[in-house]
Every structure is written in structure tokens, then in C-alpha cells.
């Protein structure tokens, strides 16, 4: 058994693909039309290139309610690791990304939270330097 795929729900797959590639900087791996939706995954060039993130449509009302519940409580739907959180914060802000939390040390980890424009909050974290 491998952990090779995870997902975030998005309210609009075309918008999500644009944001996750052009703003977050991931690379499109799959984009297969399935009916009125698409099976879209992206990978990171910085991390493990074979770990895919699926941009899932929040088409089901239950998924939508879950996504919305997390958002309103300020709970991130996913967390991505960065090497230099201050640099990433500045880079994303310059691209118009809205943060609800600027980089903040929380014990040994530094955390920032931003909106992905697809109905989610995303946590960025810089782990302790080893």
C-alpha cells in the first residue's frame, strides 16, 4: 500500500487548475474529461514527483457542505510544505493571494494560511530546519 494520491475539493476545476499551476506552481499531471467534470491531478516539481494531488469537483452537496464547514471554521483543507515560508508568502502576495494568517511561528514550525480561490484555506508550513 502506498500513499500516492491525495485530493482537495474545488468549486471550479478550470479555475483550480489555473490557480494550482500558475500561482502555487504545481505541474499538471493528468487532465482527463469525465462527463461534465475532469480528472485533474497536479504534482510538485520540488517534492516527490510521483505524489499527485487531485483537484476534485465539489459537485456533491455533501462535499460542498464539508468544504464550506471547514472554510467557515478557518480550518485548512490541505497543507503544503515550503522551504522558505517568508519568501513564499511574499511571492504569493505579489500574485494577489489573500492570506488569513501571515507566517507565524508555532513552536518549531512556522505556519501561514491562504485562500486557494476555490473555496479552501490552505496551510503552508516550514518545518524545523534539521
Amino acid at each position, binding site marked *: 500500500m502506498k500513499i500516492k494520491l491525495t485530493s482537495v475539493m474545488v468549486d471550479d476545476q478550470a479555475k483550480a487548475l489555473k490557480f494550482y499551476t500558475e500561482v502555487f506552481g504545481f505541474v499538471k499531471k*493528468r487532465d482527463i474529461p*469525465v*462527463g461534465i467534470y475532469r480528472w485533474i491531478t497536479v504534482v510538485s516539481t520540488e517534492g516527490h514527483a510521483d505524489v499527485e494531488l487531485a483537484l476534485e469537483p465539489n459537485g456533491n452537496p455533501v462535499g460542498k457542505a464539508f468544504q464550506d464547514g471547514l472554510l467557515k471554521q478557518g480550518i485548512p483543507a490541505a497543507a503544503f510544505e515550503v522551504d522558505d515560508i517568508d519568501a513564499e508568502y511574499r511571492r504569493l502576495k*505579489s500574485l494577489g493571494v489573500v492570506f*488569513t494568517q501571515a507566517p507565524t511561528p508555532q513552536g518549531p514550525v512556522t505556519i501561514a494560511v491562504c485562500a486557494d480561490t476555490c473555496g479552501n484555506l490552505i496551510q503552508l508550513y516550514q518545518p524545523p530546519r534539521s
Partner: protein
Amino acid sequence: MSASPTSADTFARLCRARDRLREVHDRTLTIDEVARDASMSPFQFIRRFTAFFGDTPHQFRIQARVDRARELLALGGHSVTDVCMEVGFSSLGSFSDLFARRVGMPPSAYRRHACAMVTVPGMLPTTLFPGCLLLMPAAFAILEKQAAGAPVTLDA
């Protein structure tokens, strides 16, 4: 671009405004009213909402109406006219045009298509309203067919 992060209070007001825009049958509600309730000028509200949610308040409301219409049509038991009224449109023509542009087929065709997929009455067909990762098997089947050189047909 704002200099500082969105405060918890502003965030909560944006989320409340988004909920109001989802109240699809309230056709008299204006964006200016929603902005006022969020204690922002219309300009500031539209700018912040769009930066956060990726759509303007107007686009968001239209999509919420189309999404709700899709659900009602798929559940059956509602005529296209009923659904049009229920989601806040007063003209059937403009509803049908908008729906067709966003969904790829007019509401009447979508209703037939969706109802044919319902296996349990009152449950939405998962092909049209996919839940977690249900698209994957279909996607891989399509990939395989493409690799084999077969013409690809879509099942939804």
C-alpha cells in the same frame, strides 16, 4: 493587494456574504445590499470577495443558481419552469440560455439525462454529482481506451 492578512472579522463577513449570495430564490437582493451588510463599500466588497473566492459576487451567485438548478432537475419532480422560478430567474429564456452555456446542454435535456441515471429515488446520481475520488475509475478507463486508439465516449 492588501498589505496585511485578512482579519478573522473580515473573513467571517466575507463568508456570511457568500452564504447570502447562495440564497438563490431571493431575486431582489442586490450586490450593494450584500456589501453593505458586510460593512464594506461595493468596490471594496467586490475586490475582496473576488481575491478570496476567485469569482466576483455576481459570478458566484449565478453559479450557485445553476448548481441548485442542476440538483433540482436531477432529483426530478420539478418542471423546468418551476426550477427556473425557484432559483431566482423570472425569464425562462434567459435561464435556459445561461444554463446551457454553463452546463453544456439546455435544462430540459439535462433533466432527461440526469433522471435516467437516478437509481434510487431522491438520491443524486454520483456520475453527475461525484463524491470523493469517484471520477478516477472512469478517468483511467478513458485513458486506457485512448491508449488502445479507440474513440472516446463520455458517460455523462
